């Protein structure tokens, strides 16, 4: 079933002359794991903001579960779309538990009292992600990887159908990168739709099942991993030559290998 | 207003009766006369009370009421800027005299506590006499009107001798005596003309050029200026400067110019003395 569908979405920021997005039409179904990739400034983050309901003045239509996004209330939207930001500039030092509890907002009254059910849900999520030990610590004191897990936990507390992520693994070390993506796979198996922006072609290749390549506000390619991740297509979208695509010997998925320029020594 | 007071004074009734007083800002106050206890928050009016010989009725004064010396021995009711409401409440005077202006909030507080306050704010010398008549009326003082008449004679307006005066009450920044200031009236009465007579402010900041353009014959400073004050542009290049007619008044002399009370006579005399000397 179509969960997110955009029809000819075009958008221009008021300060610029050119369109940021040009007639973007994509259709994402339930339980897909989709990656959005493309050069910087291609419009990926803008598209995300539109899907999240943060940007309104665009041309075209956006449907969630077949219904126009403007017909949903704030709370209803929050039960469909959840978001994990790339960076956080949090001034106030809330604890991990308090931050995860914020994710329950769509189900609470304004004062935010948690019921037993809410508390159970939060604890289950912490179990699932393995962050029980750090629940009482201040969020600002955690490592990058731990913070990322807490933000996933918050998004999961929203119990939304879709998880949107903007370059979620950029600041993670190897351990947390893999841990993070493994958890995503698990969530996907449990029924969550995943849509993420990433620059890491290999990560996309190994974990996602569909990739959309965007360049200059237009969808250039959209399809399964093995079809889209090939040298010719990537070179066209990224305008960049120094790499080759080869089949991963273990997983069988296309992987990207850089060809260093002659300037640096071996 | 003055006519009504004088008329009632001639009746000279000696027993207590309620009266409605109208003060200098138009407020109506109902009090039983004659009064027997006063708190004065206005230094000028403290002086008036002593001048009229009614100081036995004065129960407390503000800290700023420095003259006469006996006033310092009276109970203190706060400062001019911050009257002590608690103390006044404890004393429960028949009337409180306020100089208005910055005491407005204190006045409101006192009114809320049902303590009668009259605001007296003499704007010129005639008002000083009016205030004193009012005070003598409410204290039931029989021999006061004579004293006040005597006072009025001493500050009788003199003929205009066409002499131009410029006065400053402060030098940095320059605060000159303006057209609506009390001292302006003093100058007029003394027979001279304030070069700032037409300004609408009390103590405006004046430019050097204005002073020079208006050629004052006499300059009087009501403060202690810096050492080379005579070199100042606005002093040097005036007839006053050239003929050495710049007067710096001593602290005591300054006080009598700035207090709108009975000692204004001394200020008046000083002015007329300076003016007559130059007239020769």
């Amino acid at each position, binding site marked *: 079933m179509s969960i997110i569908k955009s029809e000819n979405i075009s958008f221009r920021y008021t300060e610029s002359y050119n369109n940021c997005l040009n007639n973007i039409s994509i259709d994402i179904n339930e339980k897909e794991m989709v990656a959005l990739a493309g050069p910087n400034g291609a419009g990926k983050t803008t598209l995300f903001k539109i899907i999240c309901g943060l940007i309104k003045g665009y041309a075209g239509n956006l449907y969630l579960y077949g219904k126009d996004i403007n017909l949903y209330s704030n709370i209803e939207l929050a039960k469909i779309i959840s*978001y994990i930001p790339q960076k956080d500039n*949090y001034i106030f030092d809330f604890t991990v538990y308090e*931050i995860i509890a914020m994710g329950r907002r769509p189900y609470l009254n304004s004062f*935010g009292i948690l019921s037993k059910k809410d508390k159970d849900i939060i604890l289950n999520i912490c179990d699932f992600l393995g962050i029980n030990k750090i629940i009482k610590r201040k969020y600002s004191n955690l490592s990058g990887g731990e913070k990322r897990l807490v933000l996933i936990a918050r998004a999961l507390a929203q119990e939304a159908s879709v998880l949107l992520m903007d370059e979620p693994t950029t600041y993670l070390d190897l351990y947390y990168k893999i841990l993070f993506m493994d958890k995503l796979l698990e969530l996907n198996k449990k029924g969550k739709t995943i849509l993420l922006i990433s620059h890491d072609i290999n990560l996309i290749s190994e974990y996602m099942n569909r990739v959309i390549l965007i360049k200059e506000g237009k969808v250039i390619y959209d399809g399964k991993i093995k079809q889209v991740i090939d040298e010719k297509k990537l070179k066209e979208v990224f305008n960049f030559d120094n790499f080759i695509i080869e089949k991963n010997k273990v997983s069988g998925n296309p992987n990207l290998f850089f060809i260093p320029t002659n300037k640096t020594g071996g | 207003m003055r006519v009504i007071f004088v008329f009632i004074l001639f009746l000279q009734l000696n027993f207590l009766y309620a009266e409605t007083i109208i003060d200098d800002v138009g407020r109506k106050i109902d009090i039983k006369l004659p009064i027997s206890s006063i708190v004065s928050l206005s230094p000028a009016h403290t002086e008036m009370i002593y001048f009229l010989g009614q100081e036995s009725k004065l129960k407390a004064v503000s800290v700023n009421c420095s003259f006469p010396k006996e006033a310092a021995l009276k109970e203190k009711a*706060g400062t001019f800027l911050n009257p*002590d*409401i608690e*103390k006044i409440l404890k004393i429960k005077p028949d009337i409180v005299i306020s100089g208005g202006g910055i005491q407005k909030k204190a006045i*409101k507080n006192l009114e809320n506590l049902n303590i009668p306050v009259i605001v007296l704010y003499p704007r010129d010398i005639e008002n000083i006499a009016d205030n004193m008549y009012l005070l003598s009326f409410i204290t039931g003082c029989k021999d006061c009107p004579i004293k006040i008449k005597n006072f009025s004679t001493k500050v009788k307006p003199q003929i205009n001798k066409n002499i131009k005066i410029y006065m400053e009450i402060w030098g940095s920044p320059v605060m000159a005596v303006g057209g609506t200031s009390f001292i302006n009236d003093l100058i007029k009465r003394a027979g001279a003309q304030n070069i700032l007579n037409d300004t609408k402010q009390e103590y405006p900041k004046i430019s050097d050029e204005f002073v020079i353009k208006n050629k004052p014959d006499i300059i009087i400073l009501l403060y202690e200026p810096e050492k080379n004050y005579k070199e100042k542009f606005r002093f040097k290049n005036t007839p006053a400067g050239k003929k050495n007619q710049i007067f710096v008044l001593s602290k005591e002399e300054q006080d009598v110019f700035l207090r709108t009370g009975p000692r204004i006579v001394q200020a008046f005399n000083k002015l007329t003395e300076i003016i007559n000397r130059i007239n020769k």
Partner: protein
Amino acid sequence: MKKHVLIFSLIILLFFAILFSLISGSIKISIEELLNVLIKPYFNSDNSLIIYKIRLPRILLAILVGGILGVVGSILQAIFKNPLVDPFITGVSSGAAFGATIAIIFNFYSLTFFAISGAVLTILFVYKLSVKNNNLNLYNLLLIGVMTGSFLSSLIMFLSAFFNKDLIKVVFWLMGDLSITNFTLLKYSYFFSIIIICLCIYFSNDLNIFSLDEDEAKISGVKTEFIKTLYFLSSGILTGIAVALSGVIGFVGLVIPHIMRFFTGPDLRILMPVSFIGGAVFLIICDTIARTLFLPAEIPVGIITGLLGAPIFIFILIRRK
């Protein structure tokens, strides 16, 4: 620190602050005499007049103003995600001060009315200019608020300089004064303020979420436009009431939320009420000192809040390290 322990000890502190303030003043009243007055309120002695008509209203005003400044400080620091913000940054206090200045110079009867009007007009003005397409832009709000505040302050100084005989009246009003004997005014001020503050506390969890990131808050279901409008208008009206009643008393709104946050954490559901009580206690103590330290003169309370507040804050900061 356990939340219950904190609130309890603050209330005890408030009680003692009130007691301290009731026995202090230019007329000496001992604790015995005070108890006498409190037990027999109908008995019309000198002391009872002083306690009930002078000191108690003053203390009640200090609680209201100190409390408002504390709460508004915590709100604005959350909204602007900036711990250096104080209640006067929105320009409201300058608006109230401007209204008061006009009333002082042109000798209008009700200064409070003019001050409130000035505050309200300023809030509406700043709000109108910061809203675009139904979206309240916080960045613009801050800029326009600061600019408007500066402009009005300059206007105040201009008027004071021009009508310089009123200069000292304006300056003294600005420096803050908690004396009040008008019970009706106090009653109405309490009534409106408490309603607004309760509203603010009710939605404070949304403000918690908002204080991390506006976009993320919106995605998790917070009505961000409503929250921004509610808290901006609330803090404007509350600050306007405080300034209209007592002049500009600085430092309370900046420092109290900070200090309280050390003990309660950033959760506004508890930080707001605690900031109210903390602000109230602080202002009562400062006011008592201001009016007794240099008798018979009375120092403007705004000076004491600055002189006391800064060292306390630095002390807590150092101890925390």
